């Protein structure tokens, strides 16, 4: 059953077949996308018409390749921008939250911690609609009472950033908090007894210890933001993010350029994952 126990041949082979089938199931959609990105055809289907890079570089109206499709490039850029803002904000606030809940004692701590964890179990659609509703009502309230119209309170770039931040911060808090649990508090106490202020001891002692977790959390928040659809769709204004753009294209204008974009995403993620493994192995 496990490495050290003998098994019947039948059992071993059966198990291997199951695992292979699982991995085929896991990789086949991604492999298919990548292969068909190079198919010299106007449709996303077999038969194989020959190798072509048209869906990357061609710029005729019939075949608008990825690097000639301005709308698509803009939405990729919007997603990168959104992701960076979300990652920055949620890393900052998530780290504050981790430090707050691990190191400080105060009233209503349990309740606040519960609220900070809530985004884990609130479906993304619900977060999207409730943030849309509340920011719209806040916008109407401000306009009625102060006569100021704030565009960002309606569906817009910044509403998407704040919507995604609302749950990414939870993931950052958990990732940084997990590392903080392993932190030797006596180091902080030593700094304090050497007359460092509380803020100095955190900045010079705790934060350097947390650095790998903070960097990791930044990347995680960026990637979650980059692929989010369920919350984003309700908050989005005129700047489409990549997942929303992909969704609209899947529904209304299906061309193999989608394969080309997907291939770029898959390649990027694979390289990032491989780098991550090598970095971890070195330690």
């Amino acid at each position, binding site marked *: *059953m496990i*490495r050290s126990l003998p098994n019947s041949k039948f059992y071993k082979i059966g198990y291997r077949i199951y695992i292979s089938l699982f991995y085929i199931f896991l990789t086949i959609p991604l492999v298919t996308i990548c292969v068909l990105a190079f198919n010299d055809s106007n449709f996303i289907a077999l038969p194989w018409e020959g190798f072509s890079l048209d869906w990357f570089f061609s710029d005729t109206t019939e075949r608008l390749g990825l690097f000639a499709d301005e709308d698509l490039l803009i939405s990729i850029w919007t997603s990168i921008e959104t992701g960076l803002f979300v990652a920055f904000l949620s890393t900052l606030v998530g780290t504050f939250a981790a430090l707050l809940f691990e190191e400080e004692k105060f009233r209503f701590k349990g309740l606040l911690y519960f609220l900070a964890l809530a985004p884990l179990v609130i479906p993304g659609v619900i977060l999207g*609609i409730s943030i849309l509703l509340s920011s719209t009502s806040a916008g109407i309230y401000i306009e009625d009472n102060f006569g100021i119209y704030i565009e960002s309170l309606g569906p817009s770039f910044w509403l998407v950033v704040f919507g995604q931040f609302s749950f990414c911060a939870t993931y950052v808090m958990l990732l940084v908090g997990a590392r903080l649990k392993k932190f030797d508090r006596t180091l902080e106490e030593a700094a304090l007894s050497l007359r460092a202020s509380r803020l100095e001891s955190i900045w010079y002692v705790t934060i350097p210890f947390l650095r790998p977790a903070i960097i990791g959390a930044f990347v995680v928040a960026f990637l979650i933001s980059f692929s989010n659809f369920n919350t984003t769709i309700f908050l989005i204004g005129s700047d489409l993010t990549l997942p929303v753009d992909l969704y609209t294209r899947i529904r209304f204008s299906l061309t193999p350029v989608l394969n080309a974009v997907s291939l770029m995403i898959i390649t990027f993620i694979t390289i990032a994952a491989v780098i991550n493994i090598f970095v971890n192995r070195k330690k």
Partner: protein
Amino acid sequence: MKKRNLTFYLFIIPVLLWLMLLIVFPHVDLFLSSFQFENDDGVTVLSFNNYLSFFEDSIYWLTFLRTALYSISITVLAFVVTFPVAFYLTKVVSRKYSSFFVLLLLIPIWVGELVTIYGWMILLSDYGVINSFLIYLGIIDTPIVMLYTDFSMIIGLLYMSMLFMIIPVMSALDSLDDSLIEAASDLGASKWTIATKIVVPHAMPGIASGGIMVFMLIIGDYVAPNILGGKSSLWFTEQIYNFFLTTINWSQGAAFGFLLLMLSSAIIWGVLKLTGQKLERVGS
């Protein structure tokens, strides 16, 4: 003492702003909006009408029930499919290869749902890869209809959620001492007995947090039912989506959103109580 207070405020103010403005206030507003109703004179009044229309029109509560039952079944399916894999990766395969296999698991998660669902769409369509392949082999003459059915929807939902089951289960199995399995085996326990009496109970915390994660992703998903599901594969989130973005009846949508939130919270709370888990373990 004064300095300590300063850092404390530096931490708590952004956290309070985050939780109050983006978590508490929006959900209170969702709750309040769900009771707003525009009567025949065009005046907005407080009423239960948004909730009443949920029970009056059978398509709504049937979809609600369907979504709940499908979500629970697909969560169980995700467990059944992935448990042997999680066990294999932690206990059977040699450690040299396990990081490679785990890497393969992570890629579909990070690539994102839109891309993977699109991949299944290409695979399952009438003239898609699977049908073309089967026709080429001569197994079938006419394409089998797979896309835009419950089948394709289930495949999509299972695919995008199952990896969130494997990872917590693997970390739970990691702490299982191999010698327990060896001892049971020496004493003559069958594989089935070992699996049900030792392995699964030990992995229970991981199964619970994975199950909650998977269930939540499935019940709140919009992409897979909408792209892969057919006209009859209605999903409750699609109705919420329609109220917000198609028919623009936000307070009705808010009521439905609140019902969905209640349903998912109730089921998650039940699972946490049953397994004696804490919410904070779900995220890790």
